């Protein structure tokens, strides 16, 4: 592990332990949802930044995770199985969708469009589930209105013992840390290196005997599962799911986080997510300019002017600075 990763991990632990001591409940809840969103950002960060798969469907997996959690938790009255299913179902769906896309050898562009339309269709489908006819077990889907007052997380095996906000914050931070560290371990493994190799040169990997389709499918499925986990956390946070989890603005937010933070890093999407979430909250409380308008401008500015994103650009600046310093004659 490189020092950067260790520093980031220690920083996260510090934040996790220290924050509840200094902030009030409202800010703690705010930070909990930010951290859940960071997990969502990581899911696209690994699929796109390392797998080279530009997926507009990350919000579909996010929403699917949230809804799976909601339906299971309402039916069972406890959350442990619901979280498990909330990860497995989106991962399975990602695997199915990925099978058609990767084994059909669709190119990048088509991937983007197919995943985008899957997201839109989900959004429309879930929106149209209003009324009593649309129920799974005892859970009504409620269409556009979403599903309110969901059971929140409980201690596994003890449905009566619910987690309080501080405990939930610890849990979410721990999960963020596990996902972050786990992805780094995964990327350092043989499989992870093959994933990056496929991103760099698909044909060469194929000629070296790797099944490129299978590699892409695997990383896509992992990304789907992580997005599903983020969906569970989001559903738990507000005790609420609604079709907006599938919406286009959700998808565009995830992509903006990764673009702003930087492709090909894991800390980048986290930083991008925090900056943009903070900005979105700040913009939401004022009426001067439309959030879409500002996000669109930021999006365009980054693609045209800072295409690498913040973190890799900082890395380039740092390398330049180090070179300038070392080329100076020693006094």
């Amino acid at each position, binding site marked *: 592990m490189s020092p950067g990763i260790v520093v980031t991990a220690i920083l996260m632990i510090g934040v996790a332990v220290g924050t509840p001591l200094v902030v009030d409940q409202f800010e703690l809840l705010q930070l909990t949802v930010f951290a859940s969103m960071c997990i969502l950002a990581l899911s696209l960060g690994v699929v796109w930044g390392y797998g080279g798969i530009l997926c507009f469907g990350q919000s579909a997996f996010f929403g699917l995770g949230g809804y799976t959690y909601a339906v299971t938790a309402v039916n069972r009255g406890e959350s442990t199985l619901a979280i498990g299913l909330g990860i497995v179902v989106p991962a399975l769906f990602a695997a199915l969708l990925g099978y058609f896309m990767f084994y059909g050898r669709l190119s*990048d562009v088509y991937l983007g*469009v197919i995943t985008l*339309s899957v997201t839109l*269709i989900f959004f429309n489908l879930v929106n149209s589930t209003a009324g009593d006819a649309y129920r799974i077990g005892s859970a009504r889907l409620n269409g556009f209105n979403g599903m309110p007052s969901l059971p929140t997380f409980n201690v596994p095996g003890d449905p009566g013992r619910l987690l309080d906000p501080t405990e939930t914050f610890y849990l979410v931070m721990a999960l963020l840390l596990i996902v972050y560290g786990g992805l780094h371990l995964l990327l350092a493994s043989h499989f992870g290196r093959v994933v990056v190799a496929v991103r760099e040169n698909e044909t060469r990997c194929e000629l070296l005997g790797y099944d490129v389709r299978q590699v892409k499918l695997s990383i896509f499925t992992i990304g789907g599962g992580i997005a599903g986990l983020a969906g569970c956390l989001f559903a738990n946070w507000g005790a609420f799911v609604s079709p907006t989890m599938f919406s286009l603005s959700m998808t565009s937010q995830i992509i903006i986080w990764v673009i702003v933070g930087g492709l090909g890093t894991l800390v980048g999407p986290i930083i991008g997510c925090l900056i943009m979430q903070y900005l979105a909250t700040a913009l939401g409380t004022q009426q001067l*300019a*439309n959030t879409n*308008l500002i996000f669109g401008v930021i*999006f365009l500015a980054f*693609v045209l002017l800072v295409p690498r994103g913040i973190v890799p650009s900082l890395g380039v600046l740092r390398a330049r600075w180090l070179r300038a310093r070392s080329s100076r004659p020693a006094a």
Partner: protein
Amino acid sequence: MDLVAVLGLEILNGIASLVLISVGLAIIFGMMRVINLAHGEFLMLGGYAAIIATSHGVNIWISMLVVAPIVVGLIGIVAERLIIRVLYGRMIDTLLATWGLSLFFIGLVTTIFGNSVAGIGAPLGSVAVGRYSISLYRLFLVGVAAAMVVAIYAVLRGTRAGLLARATMENPNMAAALGVSPPRVYATTFGVGAALTGLAGGVLAPISGVLPTVGAAYVAKAFITVISGGTAIVAGTATAAGLFGTVSQLVTYLTTPVIGEAGLLVAAILLLRVLPHGITGRIFRGSL
């Protein structure tokens, strides 16, 4: 019998609206290979242009068929000059930049006109077929769609401008060596694609209404149609629209409109699994 006629007309309408929302994209994406994710917003802007012109006293036909394409065509040319031009050949960056552009348009229109549905009444009345009544305006849309396909085919095949456009897309360096200015051809072609999109948005406005986020409903369907059509943009888009229009209207008739849309997507994914290069990658090869 009446039911068959009405269902047939519904299918024809489904095909026509798919053709309308995808012809502009067939030129911009199919021909120029520019992934314009702001396509849905071009349609939305066309709708707003038509509605606003009409509400300011312009004749409804002029505002749909003249004002909307001119406004959106100009917006398209500006977007090409400022953003797309920098990114030719960088497909993913184009895709992201136009996505940003689409958010920008949504935000801008929401700021100006508010997040509510605007609409104009559809002109022309309706006609009775047995026990059913059919809107004449929908028949007019079928006519517009057919006219657009024929016109694009005729221009690309029969005129010097069409020849120059095709040659430049095929090999810009060779075209430049023969005295054509590729940047100008790109800008014009993009403008034409945007104008056709604006026209489509204008004529669709009376039946679908417009709101700032309406583009999302169109963009995925348009891309699916053009991609499934394959390399021959006119024949491909027309056949793909025919296929998907039929599938989605039949499924809609049997179930609900939302499931009809899902059926369209499933049909497209299955089709691309079998024919990864689209319909005209296998059949009608070499046509236009």
